[in-house]
């Protein structure tokens, strides 16, 4: 379920605001709708109530005045009691009231108990007395009196026939003798659009606002996305591109500015480190060179040999430290290289020193930094020879990765120490004394080389015993 939800800031905020808007609009619309409904009902009750109050007045003799006011010169007072309401009904536009012997209910009628109660209340408040009350909703088509009334109304006010209501409220009260019956059209709220109108309205509004919101938000998230890309790139290769131009809203501008300042600071520190290591390298190597030359004049051959070994040891460690500081910052572009030939050339170096290394290759071409990968592979092979008592190098392809694998038949590394072995200046138990060599930077450098190529260095113990170290490089 959650995987269908948007993951980006832009998507999530837009969705959240759209949902809120939709709910608020929906509630609003519903409230408006119910208020209007209430108003319509109150209007209906009042109209009916007024007419029923008036019907009593008319029947009790006020009719003359009323009629006189409406149509001066007409004589109504002489009409009989029974006649009057019907005539009055005719006179007063059909629905004002009719006098009937009983309240006729039709099958199409629908009782309106709630409104009937309200109507009764209104009548009591206005002093209109009755013994029974009825209020129903009736289709206009079933009520000829209502039809006549509505037709006249349409004529007088110029309504189109389709604008006229479909149903009418019919209310009647009795004092025990006969029924006073009045009628009023029912105007339903949002008759034209139906009850779904508020929902539709909310939907359209939400869509419109969401679009505007999306436009505004994109102005914020656009620069943020660029900043993310930029940061990722920086963490891979620091100091390669120009600082990012601050844009977007003020907060984001400040974030970009702060990021640029941080980049500049990190870049300066990295450059400083390189300069410092370079200086150390140079400053130590020149006196070492002087020492190396002076050693030649030492008479005692055994002492001279030991001195030469020590100097070479220092040089080796210095080289590894400098290499570790420089890896990944090579200016030279990587080149398409035959990995089989690369492995062969490394193996041959060891053969020239009298070591035996097995080699099994297939031709795989990858884009690599030749000097660095050779150096990394050399470290793995020399580890295997030193601690594993022999090395087997193979070049193969696994999926979309080129694998340079070095295996030995030594004791391997305890599983819980494997991760430690990649840390600088860590050496296996077997090589605590420096005589077996190395500063403990070989695997660290190999890992750095793997990362420089976007790949990884993988160490594992072989099922049959021995260590397997491999470069896995993306092709």
């Amino acid at each position: 379920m959650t995987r269908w939800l948007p993951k980006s800031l832009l998507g999530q905020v837009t969705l959240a605001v759209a949902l809120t808007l939709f709910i608020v609009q929906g509630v609003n619309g519903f409230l408006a709708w119910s208020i209007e409904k209430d108003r319509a009902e109150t209007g209906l009750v009042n109209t009916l109530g007024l007419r029923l109050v008036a019907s009593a007045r008319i029947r009790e003799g006020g009719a003359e005045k009323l009629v006189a006011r409406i149509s001066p010169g007409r004589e109504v007072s002489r009409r009989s009691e029974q006649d009057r309401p019907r005539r009055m009904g005719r006179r007063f536009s059909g629905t004002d009231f009719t006098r009937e012997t009983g309240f006729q209910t039709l099958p199409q009628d629908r009782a309106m108990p709630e409104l009937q109660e309200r109507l009764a209340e209104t009548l009591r408040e206005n002093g209109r007395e009755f013994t029974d009350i009825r209020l129903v909703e009736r289709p206009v088509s079933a009520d000829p009196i209502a039809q006549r009334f509505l037709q006249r109304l349409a004529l007088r006010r110029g309504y189109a026939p389709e604008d006229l209501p479909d149903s009418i409220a019919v209310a009647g009260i009795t004092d025990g003798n006969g029924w006073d019956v009045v009628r009023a059209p029912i105007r339903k709220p949002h008759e034209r659009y139906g009850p779904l109108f508020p929902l539709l309205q909310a939907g359209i509004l939400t869509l419109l606002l969401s679009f505007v919101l999306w436009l505004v938000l994109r102005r914020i998230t656009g620069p943020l996305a660029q900043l993310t890309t930029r940061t990722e790139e920086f963490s891979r290769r620091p100091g390669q591109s120009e600082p990012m131009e601050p844009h977007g809203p003020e907060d984001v501008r400040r974030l970009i500015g702060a990021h640029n300042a941080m980049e500049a600071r990190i870049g300066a520190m990295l450059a400083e480190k390189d300069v410092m290591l370079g200086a150390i390298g140079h400053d130590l190597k020149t006196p070492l060179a002087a020492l190396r030359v002076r050693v030649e004049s030492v008479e005692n051959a055994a002492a001279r040999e030991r001195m030469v070994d020590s100097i070479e040891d220092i040089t080796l460690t210095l080289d590894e430290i400098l290499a570790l500081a420089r890896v990944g910052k090579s200016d030279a572009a990587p080149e398409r290289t035959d990995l089989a030939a690369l492995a062969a050339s490394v193996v041959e170096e060891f053969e020239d020193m009298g070591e035996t290394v097995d080699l099994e290759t297939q031709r795989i071409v990858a884009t690599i930094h030749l000097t660095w990968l050779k150096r990394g592979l050399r470290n793995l092979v020399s580890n295997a020879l030193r601690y594993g008592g022999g090395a087997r190098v193979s070049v193969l392809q696994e999926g979309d990765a080129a694998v340079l694998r070095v295996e030995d038949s030594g004791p391997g590394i305890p599983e819980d120490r494997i991760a430690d072995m990649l840390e600088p200046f860590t050496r296996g138990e077997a090589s605590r004394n420096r005589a077996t060599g190395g500063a403990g930077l070989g695997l660290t450098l190999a890992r750095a080389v793997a990362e420089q190529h976007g790949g990884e260095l993988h160490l594992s113990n072989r099922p049959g015993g021995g260590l397997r170290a491999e470069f896995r490089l993306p092709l």
Partner: protein
Amino acid sequence: MNDNAPTTLLLVDDERTLREPLAEYLTGQGFVVREADSAAMARSLLGTETPDLVLLDIMMPGEDGLSLCRHLAETKKTPVILLTAKGEAMDRIVGLEIGADDYVTKPFEPRELVARIRSVLRRAERVPEDAAEDMLYAFEGWKLDPLKRRLIDPEGTLVPISTAEFRMLRAFCDHPRRVLDRDQLLDMVQGREAHLFDRAVDNQISRLRRKIEADSRNPHFIQTVRGGGYRFAAEVTRMAQDSR
């Protein structure tokens, strides 16, 4: 060569602690050594005398070694060996591109330095003028770059080869279609590394074949000639370096 007239070296390094013992050592090896502690002093010395070879430190205060090296390559034909504290391939290429003949990384083995001095002097004698020194060798789509010591296959893929293999292939490219016996090859290939002298030529040949031959048991390029020797069967052309 130092039997008749002694070889003169100019040693340029700002570090007295290295310069003095090195000068002493080289004198002990039979060279006449002139010393300079800066590029400026080296220039003034070069105005009055012409040494056979210049040993030049790269990192020096004032004018650095690379700049002096460029000057030497343009004005005189004196061979130059760079002394550098760095050791990356880039430095070497930069050094060789501006006209240095070789380089050694500090701290170097004094005996190796002497071997390289002799090797550079021998090369300078044997090839008096080779303007096309850094032209590429091309054979059947393969390219051998003598400057960067790189071999590129017909598909444009870099094929890593060792220095010894490079020298041997270059010797073949310099003498295509000619039978070269083992002694000739050894003579042309022998470089600075001592172990190269006594390594079997056949071993190098088989390694080289593994890298450039489609089927190393049935070689197309490097053919074995009955009676002791090898022949490079391809036609070799020289071409200018790609624009870099």
